[in-house]
């Protein structure tokens, strides 16, 4: 019934006393997520908006049994916050922070490799299993319990597709925002594998962006390992080369990473691609309505 997070997930918010951390810790709790407290170095022992605060992640894990870190620490401290969560043995680390230097992420990714922690993000909206747990900044009310797994590099565009799905009465198993940075913790491939293995996910909606080759690699994985229907959209079909389109990772460099290339790679492996972002929900409905099989 979903992937990565559910009603048993115990969330610790790093940077809970900041403006963003406070706001979203409360929204997550309202949704029904088990938010066990937070960490702000120097404010340990206090209570903030009803949440207990600890000085270190290690202490917090011991005291609360948290198994998921949700990070709102500003860019200069974000890499360190991820490392601290990993050091405390946190199985899942979700980093919302936008603007983490790429060189920091290269080191963090290497430090986490082979270890027990999975990182989602940075520069991502987080993830949500509708009806169970919202661990991130997405508006909870647009989601609906169901069988479509959503994985995306973008934030608001993910809300857009969720809205389109919900309006057609197509609920979601889990929605994962993997983030818009060039180096991130969890790739499309890892999320696709989880959706493929999740008995309650019946179809997968994948939203990519220009820049890099993550979508091409995901397409190769779909060909070899995914039997569930996959619908894909790539934004940035009209983006000019050499310009960073908001996200650090969304840039067409050296003529590589165009939307057209990515759409072709997806189509070549039988992923149903969507030309217009207004048709994402309708396409999933069509693919699921006609048959439950992958379309050629």
């Amino acid at each position, binding site marked *: 019934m979903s992937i990565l997070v559910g009603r048993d997930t115990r969330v610790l918010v790093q940077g809970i006393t900041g403006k963003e951390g406070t*706001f979203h810790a409360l929204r997550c709790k309202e949704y029904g997520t088990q938010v066990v407290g937070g960490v702000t170095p120097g404010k340990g022992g206090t209570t903030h908006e009803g949440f207990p605060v600890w000085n270190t992640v290690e202490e917090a894990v011991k005291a609360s049994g948290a198994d998921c870190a949700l990070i709102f620490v500003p*860019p*200069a401290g974000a890499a360190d916050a991820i490392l601290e969560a990993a050091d405390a043995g946190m199985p899942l680390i979700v980093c919302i922070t936008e*603007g*983490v*230097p*790429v*060189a*920091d*992420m*290269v*080191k963090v*990714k*290497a*430090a986490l490799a082979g270890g027990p922690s999975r990182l989602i993000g940075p520069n991502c909206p987080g993830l949500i299993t509708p009806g169970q747990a919202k661990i991130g*900044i*997405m*508006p909870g009310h*647009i989601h609906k319990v169901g069988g479509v797994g959503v994985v*995306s*590099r*973008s*934030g*608001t*565009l*993910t*809300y*857009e597709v969720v*809205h389109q799905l919900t309006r057609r009465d197509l609920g979601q198993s889990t929605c994962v925002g993997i983030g*818009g940075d*060039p*180096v991130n913790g969890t790739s499309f491939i890892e999320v696709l594998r989880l959706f493929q293995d999740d008995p309650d996910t019946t179809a997968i909606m994948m*939203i990519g*962006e*220009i820049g*890099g*080759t*993550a979508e091409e690699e995901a397409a190769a994985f779909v060909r070899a390992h995914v039997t569930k229907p996959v619908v894909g*959209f790539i*934004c*940035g*079909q*009209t*983006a*000019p080369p*050499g*310009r*960073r*389109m*908001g*996200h*650090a990772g*969304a840039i067409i460099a050296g*003529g590589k990473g165009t*939307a057209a290339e990515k759409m072709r790679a997806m189509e070549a492996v039988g992923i149903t691609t969507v*030309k*217009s*972002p*207004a*048709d994402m929900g309708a396409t999933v409905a069509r693919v699921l309505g006609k048959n439950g099989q992958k379309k050629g």
Partner: protein
Amino acid sequence: MKVHEYQAKALLREFGVPVPDGDVADTPARAREIAQRLGSRVVVKAQVHAGGRGKAGGIKLAADAAGAEAAASQILGMRLKTPQTPPEGIVVRSVWVERASAIERELYLSMTLDRTRATHVVMASPAGGMDIEDVAARTPEKIIREWTHPALGLADYQARRLAFGLGLAGEAFKQGVGLIRNLFRLYLAKDCSLVEINPLVVTTDGRVLALDAKLSFDDNALYRHQELVALRDVNEEDPLDVEASKYGLNYIKLDGNVGCMVNGAGLAMATMDIIKLAGGEPANFLDVGGGASPEQIENAFRILSSDPAVKAVFINVFGGILRCDRLAEGVIAAVRKLGLTMPVVVRMEGTNVELGRQMLAESGLALTSAEDMGVGATKVVALARGATRG
């Protein structure tokens, strides 16, 4: 962020990477003085943030100080047009005057991020002076790559392999290894997203020099490099991009006539795409961010509507944190304050959408609302066309 060649060369020198002796000039007289000091043949190079300068007449060889002055007076103030500049070109405000080198061989060296491997890669090729994309396509065996260790960096044996691969020997080999190591030190220390030396040359007297230098930096890391922020040249950027960056807005000017205001980078790109699919052309990319205030929305509106090409505006907002009623408030205030007469199509969804729609409907302003982004795009493209004819 990009910097000029003369700024890049100063950084190279600071990190012990040899570059030809030279200096920057913003008048022909100053160029003459520099050439006089150098006392040799010189190269006068236009300083703009774009490649392809040589073919466009932005680089000239001069035999002496008088020649340097003449070359500088031709280049300074010219509107340089290369495949990498905007169609109208960029005005040249300064030139770099350097000692001309007697070149024996031209090589290529660059450093950047390999996204797939999530680490830094150093690339070298004995086929210097050419477009590296062409080399990669035609003769991929001529490119040598060394992926660096994420924590340990570039090992000495890797620097040696690169230098051997470049065909360097003897004294030039030693210089090459040192240069590669120092350049990688610069790449890491300054959070570069790209360092490209094309060409790296071996001179006839056996020296290894960076003849050109292209540096760009990770924008996310600029907070820890105030020394680099000071090198920013806003003359090289679109004035509207510069204005938007003052208000924390992510704006990129494009060539179309439909202005776009969107929250979130992915949705902003998707909005541009859907305008194109509806038969129009987006005038800009604009991400107002997740928690935009009414002031930011007003500034965003002012900036995108000050582009004279814009004939109609499409607002596409999925309000999560950004509530639709606050968006409506910002839009109404902006349209009133700026006295905007061009058509505006608003598509909004999410938190407090009913209240937001009601506010727009009751504002008495000529705002067209659209229930989804497909309908909104069709409407705004039609309105932009009508406005163009009228």
